[in-house]
């Protein structure tokens, strides 16, 4: 049974929304801290490094989970360009989530800065102390941040487009999950909720092929 489920794995959904909040917070913290010479600069800078490393750790846990549990199939009637955009943007989102903390970390190392997470916890340098490299990485950190924000906006708009206009179940696959089809008989393991992180990804009770979802429930 190699069929992907209808929805993203519940644990993946939890991590998705947790990281969505963290990544958005980081982008706001990042552009906010560089915008000011006020005391907020130091407060935000102190948050920026540990949250960035937390995102790096989460994405390193999330990527294998995503590769193992797979993704639900896109609607069969989705135009090929939109399929390409969906898959390409997911690759870029993962790449950005992993690259931004690594660039930030390498950038501080290249600038000769201690990579301080908390008082007393300093990470080792992952790049040589080199100001050309620092200048390059520092610039990349800003440019990729702005592109990352634009990508997140496009991702959000696309998700809402699926949920509000196409009503094709794609948005639900990363939110509440697909409700059991009314035509399906009640299942023995129906007490396992969609958000139960221990629910098997490959639920044998699910239908063999994607079934059209009722529009009323969207």
């Amino acid at each position, binding site marked *: 049974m190699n069929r992907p489920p209808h929805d993203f794995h519940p644990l993946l959904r939890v991590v998705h929304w947790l990281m969505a909040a963290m990544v*958005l917070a980081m*982008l*706001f913290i990042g*552009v*906010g801290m*560089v*915008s*000011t*010479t*006020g*005391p*907020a*600069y*130091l407060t935000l*800078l102190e948050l920026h490094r540990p949250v960035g490393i937390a995102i790096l750790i989460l994405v390193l846990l999330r990527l294998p989970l995503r590769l193992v549990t797979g993704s639900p199939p896109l609607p069969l009637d989705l135009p090929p360009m939109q399929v390409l955009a969906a898959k390409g943007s997911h690759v870029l989102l993962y790449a950005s989530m992993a690259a931004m903390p690594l660039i930030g970390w390498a950038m501080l190392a290249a*600038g*000769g*800065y*201690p990579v*301080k997470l908390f*008082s*007393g916890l*300093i990470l080792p340098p992952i790049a040589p*102390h*080199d*100001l*050309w490299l*620092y*200048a390059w990485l*520092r*610039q990349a950190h800003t440019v990729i941040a702005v592109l990352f*924000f634009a990508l*997140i*906006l496009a991702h*959000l*708009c696309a998700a*809402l*487009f699926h949920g*509000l*206009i196409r009503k094709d179940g794609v948005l639900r696959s990363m939110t509440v999950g697909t409700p059991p089809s009314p035509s399906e008989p009640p299942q023995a393991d129906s007490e396992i909720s969609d958000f139960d992180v221990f629910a098997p990804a490959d639920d044998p009770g699910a239908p063999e092929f994607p079934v059209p979802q009722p529009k009323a429930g969207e």
Partner: protein
Amino acid sequence: MSTRKPVPAGPLLVIGGIAALLVLPFLWAAGWIGPKRINGGDVTRALEYNTGKKQPGFRRAHAKGLCLSGNFTANGAGSAVSTAKAFEPGTYPVIGRFSVAGGNPLATDGRNVFHSMALLLNTPDGQEWRMAMDHTPIFPVPSAAGFIALQRATRPDPATGKPDPAKMKALIAEYPSVKAFQDYLTKAVLPSSFANATYYSINAFTLTDSTGNARFVRWQFTPEAPLSGLDKAHLDTLPRDALFREMIDRTAREPSRWHLILTIANPGDRTDSATVAWSGPHRTIDAGVLTVDKVMPEEVGACRDLNFDPTILPAGIGLSDDPLLAARSKVYSSSFQRRAGEGPHPSAVGGDLAEDLAKDPAYKEAAR
């Protein structure tokens, strides 16, 4: 490929609205919309304006410098007020930089301006303590806004070489601390050597002891070399790099030493403004001795490619409520980012060294 359904306007508006709810706060957070904030670039631009032009590759302030190295030997007394490893008995490596104020890397040393010492102290626990200190116990302005106003008003008039008196008057009306600073600088001795100057932390910081008790502190490095002053009436007769050459010659003969004196704040001392001196008796702690035994041009020293951000502090030492600290950190970072991208340029001291070497017959012989 059947007929395309028209896209409903309602949901599209909802989607656009949700996107705007993210975009507008983002633009506000970035400072691109809404009230104007002072950012690092505003201050580096003011410094460049004061200098007269951009000096690519150099610090936007304190552009002229000399690298130093040595060590700090703590006697343990500082551990009474801070858990920082640097205060535990032992000897810790130090690198740093002597500099004079201003954005001109080839400025003459004969000016009544800040003489400065920046330090980076490493401890075996991997922690760093960076300091950027001046030879005056007070700073002329309390804030980034004041600093920009200072840079704009004190730009030398190309005709007279002096700031416009009308602008200075307006500056002092807005920032009376500039007058207090000028008065101090006029009467204070202008040290004749980097080695005999006292260097002050400028801002207040906090020290936290092993019981978690935090105290406000200012510190200073007090020289063992006796203070003597430059003749302020004849500063213009000094050779361009007099202070730097003196320090190089002196260090070749003997190391220079300073005592790190921690001054614990009394109740009522201003900790949120570097413009106000702490007066009267204070509890002071002599925490140990800084020894500088090597100096070298920035081309070969370790100091050029470092940002001596005074907010990079080890555990046991923290920030105070002085808003100037955040401003210094941000502006140093902006300056660092700019010069990193511009690439290093030859320093005054490095140029001197190359000239001296070129004149040296032994070097000429070797080069041939």
